[in-house]
């Protein structure tokens, strides 16, 4: 099964579970969780079922396309369902069978792995899911988002589609995965991957990034003062990405690191509080 078919099959499966299929968010994010559809979707008590692909950027994980398992930009297939149905684990397992993996002939394990995002003020309880020893999914019950203790619990399922494709196609490297119609993942991504690694690790201008962080942060708080949630949240995401690049550049001491994380969380928490207040009014 090629990569594009895999994504399409996942869409098909989750459409049948009543999910809306959304599109990737257009600001750099470190994970599918940061898409507003998850961050805001997990807040409040209204039912919410969505699925989407989210390209995710982790500058630290870049290896100049030399490592078969690590990229600084890759994809997540994200499902968020609120409230979490009692049979959500079972539904997830059926999605694997739907991809053509007969589970009776394989081993699926749920290995304790609680999730926490200090920049989003978010945390959850869950597992990483292993298929015959290979980690293919993160499965989380959100407990907190934007510093707010959640009253209605969402289930978040984050597939690693590259891992699944490597497994299904029996490939040893992400770059060798067939994307579709004979074109490989590597052909589509390798030059971009290498250049971004050079930027992230070698060339990113530290002082201009630090000043961008400060401007974005300031603007975010000004917008929040005027009651704008979503543009402020975008700025929080931009700050978060700048933080990740600075971190990859090795430009941050332990203390500075903790300080910047706190500042991003400060914006995210305000966004979440305002969102909850406005939802209450509606």
């Amino acid at each position, binding site marked *: 099964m090629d990569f594009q078919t895999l994504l399409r099959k996942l869409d098909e499966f989750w459409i049948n579970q009543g999910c809306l299929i959304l599109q990737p968010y257009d600001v750099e994010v470190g994970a599918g969780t940061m898409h507003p559809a998850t961050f805001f979707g997990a807040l409040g008590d209204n039912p919410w079922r969505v699925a989407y692909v989210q390209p995710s950027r982790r500058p630290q994980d870049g290896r100049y396309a030399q490592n078969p398992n690590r990229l600084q930009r890759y994809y997540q297939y994200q499902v968020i369902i609120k409230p979490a149905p*009692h049979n959500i684990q079972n539904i997830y397992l059926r999605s694997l069978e739907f991809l053509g993996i007969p589970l009776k002939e394989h081993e699926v394990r749920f290995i304790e792995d609680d999730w926490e995002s200090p920049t989003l003020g978010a945390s959850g*309880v869950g597992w990483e899911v292993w298929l*015959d*020893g290979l980690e293919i999914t993160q499965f989380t019950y959100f407990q907190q988002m934007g510093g707010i203790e959640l009253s209605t619990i969402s289930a978040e399922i984050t597939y690693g589609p590259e891992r699944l494709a490597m497994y299904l196609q029996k490939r040893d490297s992400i770059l060798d995965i067939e994307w579709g119609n004979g074109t490989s993942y590597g052909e589509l991504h390798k030059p971009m991957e290498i250049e971004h690694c050079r930027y992230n690790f070698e060339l990113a201008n530290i002082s201009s990034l630090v000043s961008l962080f400060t401007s974005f942060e300031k603007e975010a708080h000004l917008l929040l003062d005027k009651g704008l949630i979503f543009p402020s949240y975008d700025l929080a995401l931009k700050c978060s990405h700048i933080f990740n690049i600075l971190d990859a550049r090795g430009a941050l001491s332990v203390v500075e690191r903790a300080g910047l994380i706190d500042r991003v969380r400060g914006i995210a928490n305000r966004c979440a509080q305002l969102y909850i207040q406005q939802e209450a009014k509606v």
Partner: protein
Amino acid sequence: MKFLLEIGCEELPPNFLPSAIQQLKERMEKLLYEKDISFSNLFVYGTPRRLVLLIDDIAPQQKERIVEIKGPPYQKAFDEEGNPTSAAHGFAKAQGISLDELIIKEDKQGKYVYAVKKESGRPTEEILKETIPSLLNSVYLPKSMRWDASSSRFIRPIRWILSLMDDKLLELKIGEIASNRISYTERYLEGVFSPESVDDYLQRVKVEGIILDQEERRKIILDKAKELAESVEGEITIHERFLEKIVFLNEKPHLFLGKMDERFLVLPREIIATSMESQLNLFPIHNKRGELLPYFVGVRDGDGKGLENVVEGYEQVLKARLADAHFFFEEDLKIPLKERATALSGIIFLGGLGTIADKVRRMRNIISSLPIEEIRERALRTALLCRADLTTHMVREFPDLEGIVGMNYALLQGEDEEIARAIYESYQYTLSEEGIKTPLGKLISLVDKIDTLAGAFHLHLQPTGSSDPFALRRAGQTVIEILREEERFNLREIIQAVGKAYKEEMGVELGGMEKLLEFLRNRLELALREMGIRYDIVNAVLEGKMENIRELFARAIALNELREDEEFIPTVTASVRLINIIRFAQRRGENPPEEGIKEDLLLLEEEKGLYEEGKRVARTLEILRRKEDYKAIFRELSSLKDLINRFFDKVLVMTEEKELRANRLALVNFIWNLFFLFGDLSQIVIERQRNDASS
């Protein structure tokens, strides 16, 4: 009758289960005992998907018992002539007994009327129904979660409850989940069955290959793993914690042998073992000489169906991990550790205190100041190399391997074994066979940790409440443990050496040293208390000198053991007389004179006697101190107690004559200083003989 409770859950964390099992067992036993419900055996089992409580021969109801119910005060229940009032009538009626069955008892609050009743036991079922939800609630959860609209919390979602008394369903509800005659042989909703009775459940579970009893699973896993290892002429070494994790990760353990690509055997064994054990839950296999073999034992939770897929999957994942490690290994060895010092200047230490390269320079400076001639050269070499592995690919990819990588690379680059081992130990926190054990390792570890502590306190990064991001408490404890074993390092000297290093290497005048000493004092207090030393003895010892930690522990242990000695209280009491008079004088602005005792001013027999004996004891103490025989020291001090008491009975210390007064104070101070070897004994709480005044 047999009782069964099965709590079906989504995958429970393996480190939670042992304590949950123990707590459930203890609490259930306590409950049955308190409620007077008899039983023969009580078992609690745990698997990744269920907690099971099984009670054999449980009585259908509580034993019959006599209860006394307190009623109104006697004065209200009976009038002056002793006739029952309406209050007495009302109480008797409410309790369903006649008036002449009331009795009168007196307690602290006065005389009261009681109803004495025989209560036939309530049905066990009823009691269990009421108490099980709170029993489950009382299990300590290291981390808890919510998963549905109810407010129930547990460590992972609860999905089903099966509760049977023989063949009868017991109706229970926990949050939104009600008990039902339904269980599952796999995950929730898979392999559903409806047990007719407790025995039917046990039978069905057994047929499905689920092994509820963790002890049984442990044995199966152990035996089968050994057997598989032997099939390739190998052995496995069991680490208890790892084995326990495997036991609680599987309810139907099915073991298999997997192969590892032989070309990875060039990697240090710890790197391979870490990839297998902590990353993939696999058992490494080694030969009789301890060298790894290209195999592993894995455990699948399930049956043998499609086992080849599982084996192949684990082999592939392991291969990918080891291929990464192998690539890093080859890259890393291109640059020797000793040439990595410059790269260390790219890694920031704490922030505001330079880089790891600066830290290494400070460590070498500290080593140069300490009285350690015979290992100084090797210590300087170790300090130069000990953080170099932080710049390797291997440690960046596998942070858990810091130290292990340094040790192995050092050996491959021809460093001597002692230095290689000390590199590993410099990262460790516990003193043990697997942790810090060599003299060189203790020295390096001590220097590293005290440098970090001093830096952190200077930057006001000291731990607060539950927040200790730099693991300073652990570092403090390690410092104390090392100082306890290595008497030649004196705490004050070390702190001075650290201050000097920061000044010379960084131009930083360290602040926060008072706080650091206070922090170490608290760590010491904790360590002593954990050894079971009584709080007042801990206080007494800590008020004494804190320089030689080893001596401090010896003093505390000796005092604690002497507590029961009949000489203890009289000796302590005598010594307290000394310090009381000194403190009294000090409050009047008079300190014992520094020039010491003038013998010609000792006029009375009792003064002379105490002084002469004090001098003798002082000499003996010097010898005993070298032998570290603190019990003998105490006995020597004890021999002074009668002289002290006689001295105070006959000699007026605070006499009007100034010169005499000063000389007597000097004598008292001299004797007190002998006792002060143990610390401030006036901190010791002497309990007075208790008179039972309540009767």
